[in-house]
């Protein structure tokens, strides 16, 4: 099988996590276990405090902590190549590991755009040297994200592309999208879509509603997204193509996705932590960290997204981690670039707001935060004997202030900055190696 995830080789973990509460919804496992990892592979799941310390390995006290399958994020911007002042593969994957993620899919709207095989090949090589967690790459659908000419999709697939997207921009022309979907029969690969009708979103900078009316900011109406979800679902159904809708933000899009799934179209959708927890009310502060595309919408939209995530209409969580430098965001709201970072806060934000808030069960949250890779035909992390160790250990009781201890990301434009969240990642194992370890654990007892 062609290699589609790329990372730096990590030393295989030799580790016993004692008495940790393992929650793997797909295995219907929700109990305390000793988790033994040998040579980077889950060797044994045994009753708590039953396993002896492994020779030459480390023992971690897991009591009072939870272990989840490693989280996966099918939508991040790692900014390499060309915008390394915002983020690079090293810092972006470090942020991912700090957030409990064991695999990522990076978007191609870099500089240059990932629109030909040499750029992609060089990016994969860089990931093999720098990425702390496995990263897959999408290539662009159209050259230079211009919306006018298809990329060499077949060659890009051979070079390792997981799929295609013009993320950051819609494929405005229905005819162009149709050609890409037809071409998918030759080359495979999921086509992921940023849905926005530019004629409706125009020069908008936030959700169109009472808050935009008050602030005098140009609005982006919900229908600019939902009409495109409906349009492209119809085209995908007609061509029997596989399409994934990125960062859905509004109740109308949920309705369009529901209808498309009921009609049998091969479509899936993702939602972002910020859309699931925040509304346009926070934009009253005019803090540019709350500026993203699609924008934060109304409370009714937020609730519809949570319900769709719970029911499975929306298949998975994606962060749309979008780092920007401080000087780019320290400008009036209308001039600031769109985007928030999200890898380091995704789990804690969703756990605090949705699970502790009583809107979503923890097991469902974990299922949706680990579902993104399967949508791109990649394996889903599991905590089971014989599997590579892809897991995170989390202290669900720990409260922390976002940003107080700095960020692993190179950028600090996080929409949760300054908030107190609950749930802290202590350890992340990605593809068998330790990708992240909280500072307080660095002094963990080593057993000879």
């Amino acid at each position, binding site marked *: 099988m062609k290699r589609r995830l790329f990372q730096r080789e990590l030393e295989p973990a030799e580790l016993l996590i004692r008495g940790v509460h393992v929650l793997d919804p797909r295995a219907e496992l929700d109990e305390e276990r000793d988790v033994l990892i040998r040579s980077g592979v889950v060797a044994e799941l045994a009753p708590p405090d039953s396993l002896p310390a492994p020779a030459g390995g480390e023992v971690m006290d897991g009591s009072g902590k939870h272990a989840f399958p490693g989280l996966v994020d099918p939508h991040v911007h790692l900014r390499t190549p060309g915008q390394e002042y915002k983020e690079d593969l090293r810092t972006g994957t470090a942020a991912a590991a700090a957030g409990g993620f064991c695999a990522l899919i990076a978007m191609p709207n870099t500089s240059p755009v990932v629109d030909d095989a040499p750029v992609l090949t060089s990016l994969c090589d860089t990931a093999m040297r720098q990425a702390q967690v496995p990263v897959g790459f999408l290539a662009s659908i159209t050259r230079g994200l211009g919306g006018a000419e298809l990329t060499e999709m077949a060659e890009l697939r051979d070079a390792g592309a997981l799929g295609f997207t013009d993320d950051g921009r819609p494929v405005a022309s229905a005819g162009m999208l149709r050609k890409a979907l037809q071409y998918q029969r030759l080359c495979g690969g999921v086509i992921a879509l940023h849905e926005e009708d530019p004629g409706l979103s125009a020069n908008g900078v936030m959700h*169109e509603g009472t808050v935009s*009316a008050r602030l*005098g900011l140009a609005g982006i109406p919900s229908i600019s997204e939902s009409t495109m979800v409906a349009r492209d679902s119809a085209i995908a159904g007609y061509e029997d193509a596989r399409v994934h809708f990125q960062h859905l933000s509004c109740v109308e899009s949920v309705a369009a996705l529901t209808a498309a799934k009921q009609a049998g179209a091969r479509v899936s959708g993702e939602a972002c932590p910020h859309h699931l927890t925040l509304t346009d009310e926070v934009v009253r502060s005019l803090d540019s960290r709350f500026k993203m595309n699609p924008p934060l919408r109304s409370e009714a939209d937020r609730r519809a997204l949570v319900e769709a995530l719970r029911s499975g209409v929306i298949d998975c969580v994606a962060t749309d981690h979008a780092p920007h430098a401080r000087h780019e965001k320290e*400008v009036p709201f*209308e001039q600031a670039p769109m985007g928030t970072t999200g890898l380091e806060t995704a789990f804690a934000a969703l756990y605090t707001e949705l699970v502790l808030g009583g809107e979503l069960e923890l097991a469902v949250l974990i299922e949706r935060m680990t579902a993104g890779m399967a949508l791109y035909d990649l394996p889903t992390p599991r905590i089971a004997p014989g599997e590579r160790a892809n897991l995170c250990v989390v202290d669900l009781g720990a409260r922390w202030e976002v940003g107080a201890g700095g960020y692993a990301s190179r950028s600090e434009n996080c929409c949760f900055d300054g908030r107190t969240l609950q749930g802290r990642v202590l350890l992340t194992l990605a593809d068998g190696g330790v990708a992240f370890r909280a500072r307080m654990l660095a002094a963990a007892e080593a057993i000879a």
Partner: protein
Amino acid sequence: MTAKHLISIEDLDRAGIERILDRAQSFAEVSGREIKKVPALRGRTVVNLFYEASTRTSSSFELAAKRLSADVVSVRSTGSSVDKGESLKDTIQTLSAYDPAAIVIRSPHVGAASLVAGWCDASVINAGDGKHEHPTQALLDVYTLRRALGGLDGVNIWIVGDVLHSRVARSNILAFRRMGAEVTVTGPPTLIPRGIEALGCAVQPTIERLGEADVVYVLRMQHERMHESFIPSLREYAARYQISSARLAPRQLLMHPGPVNRGVELSADAIDSPQALIGEQVKAGVAVRMAVLYELLVGTPILAAVA
């Protein structure tokens, strides 16, 4: 307790607005004297930073500061380092070196004034930030109306025209409501922002019921709106929404923030009619802006101590 900045009408409660208007009234008397100066801000510096073209707002702020004996520095975006691509933050840090007591800022961008307030120690006065707010315009309009009517309680005010692109409309709706007036907005449906009712106003699609208004406040209709297809033509706009003497009852007062497009949103006969307060609005500008500068930089507690 007085506020440090004037960014939004929401920074002021009704008592705060009335305090400023009362003080403006006493400053209006200063403007009637031969020597039009008081020493309130002697030795202090006021920076006027204008990123957009402006005649009446910039000149009245400059006059207001000078009549309070402040040293005034006026910076316009054209011909300054802003023209050379300097960021707003860097410009503010540069100007902060002069230790200004107040920075008056006009910007094409929403929220610029509140950002500036976070970047320096000066009092910041919003002289218009994009389509967001223009609080001193609202104050001078309330001042003008209060002089004409005695008060705004129960007064029915209609705001007519391009509400979507108007910072004046937003500040004025809020200020008129705070002062007890009822506000209705009307204009082409393409130029009425969805959700504007949340500011506390009613919306009417036509001027059919304009007769209910005690005050008709007309907004400027910019020519470029036609090219952006918000309206099919200025001719059609004028046919449906232009305020003329024929469309006004003699008891109704007419206002406009200026500059007027004669023959578009207002007919010539309406502009020159005795019920128009447009000249009064301009005259009020200096006294009200003196009062705002005084309120922020000197404030009530010190005045009380002096008295």
